[in-house]
């Protein structure tokens, strides 16, 4: 378990913290924040590349700030993999083991195991300069694991990769986390947070302003900033089912079947429904839209532009409607409404 207490770092013009954060063993904690918010700085403080001005960091009970950076036992994976260009892929992976004076026979065995796990067996003799972005990131993950870290720090490890490679690396991250590796992962990408996190935190101007389970943080943003950063509030973890004879698929959540179109081959993932593309009406009517439900209004909230209405149709769905529609429909809590949206309003994110 990682425990951060009142961690602070002062620069001229930027104050980081105080940050308090607890990351449970085995969790994938994603810290979401825009660039310049201090999220990478937090990783550098934990890794020891920066000296904290005040505060404490404990990893499994030992005070990290009293340990030299090379004795902390926490691996870090950078946005652009910091591979050692003068060493081969195999030597890169062996580097942490050689630093720890592990026997050569053991090093060879572990290098091969890691190479197999990350499908880089054929690259072992190559130099990093000849690798593609995805290959380099796989090597950097293998190298980080070679030190058998107590936890791993991920500094936007996916953001310099194209979409296909992201999926591949994301799957590695999911499998490493399933194996019990604790992760602190910083990103500015809301969708990454949705897909990967077991806990999520939002950082703004060097302070963590909200932290908790993703469904709590994203559905109940504490501030407008969190709401904006958290993006779409209609998101659900789903398993897709095929519709016989149709190109559409359905996602079943709590007995509610939502139809969508996707060419993803993956069965598991998240669906996102755009709040702006949901139509509310007083009763169900015939239309070309294929997703039609009825439910009761739970709450409605005034937003800078329009209103956000929360409807319980078996699952909670948020819709964005104008002030004019709100008064014309005489929206009230507890009122029965019909909820309609097209297939195209539903986006699928695979895992």
């Amino acid at each position: 378990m990682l425990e951060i207490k009142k961690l602070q770092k002062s620069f001229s013009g930027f104050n980081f913290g105080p940050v308090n954060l607890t990351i449970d063993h085995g969790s994938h904690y994603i810290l979401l924040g825009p660039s310049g918010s201090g999220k990478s700085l937090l990783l550098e403080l934990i890794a020891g590349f920066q000296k904290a001005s005040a505060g404490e960091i404990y990893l499994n009970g030992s005070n990290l700030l009293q340990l030299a950076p090379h004795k902390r036992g926490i691996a870090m994976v950078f946005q652009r993999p910091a591979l050692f260009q003068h060493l081969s892929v195999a030597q890169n992976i062996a580097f942490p083991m050689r630093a720890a004076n592990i026997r050569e026979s053991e090093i060879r065995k572990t290098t091969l195991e890691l190479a197999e796990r990350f499908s880089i067996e054929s690259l072992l003799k190559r130099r990093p300069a000849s690798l593609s972005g995805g290959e380099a990131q796989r090597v950097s993950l293998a190298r980080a694991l070679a030190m058998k870290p107590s936890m791993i720090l991920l500094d936007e490890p996916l953001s310099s990769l194209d979409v296909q490679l992201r999926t591949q690396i994301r799957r590695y991250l999911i499998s490493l986390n399933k194996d019990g590796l604790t992760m602190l992962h910083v990103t500015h990408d809301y969708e990454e947070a949705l897909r990967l996190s077991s806990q999520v935190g939002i950082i703004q101007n060097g302070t963590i302003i909200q932290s908790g389970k993703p469904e709590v943080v994203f559905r109940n943003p504490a501030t407008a900033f969190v709401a904006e950063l958290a993006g779409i509030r209609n998101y659900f973890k789903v398993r897709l089912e095929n519709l016989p004879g149709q190109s559409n698929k359905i996602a079943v959540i709590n007995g509610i079947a939502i139809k969508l179109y996707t060419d993803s081959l993956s069965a598991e993932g998240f669906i996102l429904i755009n709040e702006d593309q949901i139509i509310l009406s007083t009763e169900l009517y015939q239309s070309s839209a294929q997703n039609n439900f009825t439910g009761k209004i739970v709450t409605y909230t005034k937003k800078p532009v329009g209103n956000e209405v929360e409807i319980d149709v078996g699952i909670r769905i948020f819709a964005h409607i104008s002030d004019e529609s709100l008064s014309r429909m005489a929206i009230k809590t507890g009122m029965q409404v019909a909820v309609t949206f097209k297939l195209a309003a539903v986006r699928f994110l695979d895992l």
Partner: protein
Amino acid sequence: MVFKNNSLNLFFAFLGGLFLLFLVAPLLNLMLAASPAKLFETASDPVVSKSIGLSLMMAAVATFFSAMLAVPFAWLMARSKFRLKHLVSGLIDLPMMIPHSAAGIALLGVVNRESAFGKLASGFGIDFIDQPAGIAVAMAFVSVPYLFNASYNAFANVPLRTEHAALNLGASPAKVFFKISLPLAWKGVLNGLIMMFARGMSEFGAVIIIAYNPFTTPVLIFDRFNAFGLKNAQGISALFILISLVVFIGLRLITKPSEDVRN
């Protein structure tokens, strides 16, 4: 955009031709004046071969000991940010800027037998005046900025992130320096070592002030010229230029000039 055969290019090419002629003509003239037989005869002269051996040996000694001090310091400077950094950089460049004879005089003030340092060194059995050790010190003084600057640029080009990654993977700071920073900067450092060696072995001004004897080749050339005139100094000059050329070509083959990122 490519300009071909316009009058400005032609004019500049003409200026360039004059410039290259200015550089090459004296050397070419000297090499033509010295026949292979004469070069061989010069090389067989024990005074000449001894001076060449001394020049190369002392340049190597100067480079070796300077590297011990300057290369780690270049890394430290490349990784440090402090207010007076530019001042320290300027100080290191100073020996390149001042007349080398003046550098020799300055050095003589410190290493002469009457000075505190001279006395201390004497206590350890090291004398500088008219001694190989003095030659090495004079060579080091005027040529070490080349080594420092090349090493500084090479280390500055090693991404800090790479060193951080190595630390993070459990390597001690010393291991990071020797296994990561130095190998990654090696080409630039080697460039600096060769430049310092080449510059050191050719040094005349500072060396002659500290040690007229034993002769290094540049001092011997001057001595022969003074005593016997131009013709006599040409053979040994040509021979030494040939040796310098070998070193220089070696340098160009091994390394490419690294960019100056200091500022």
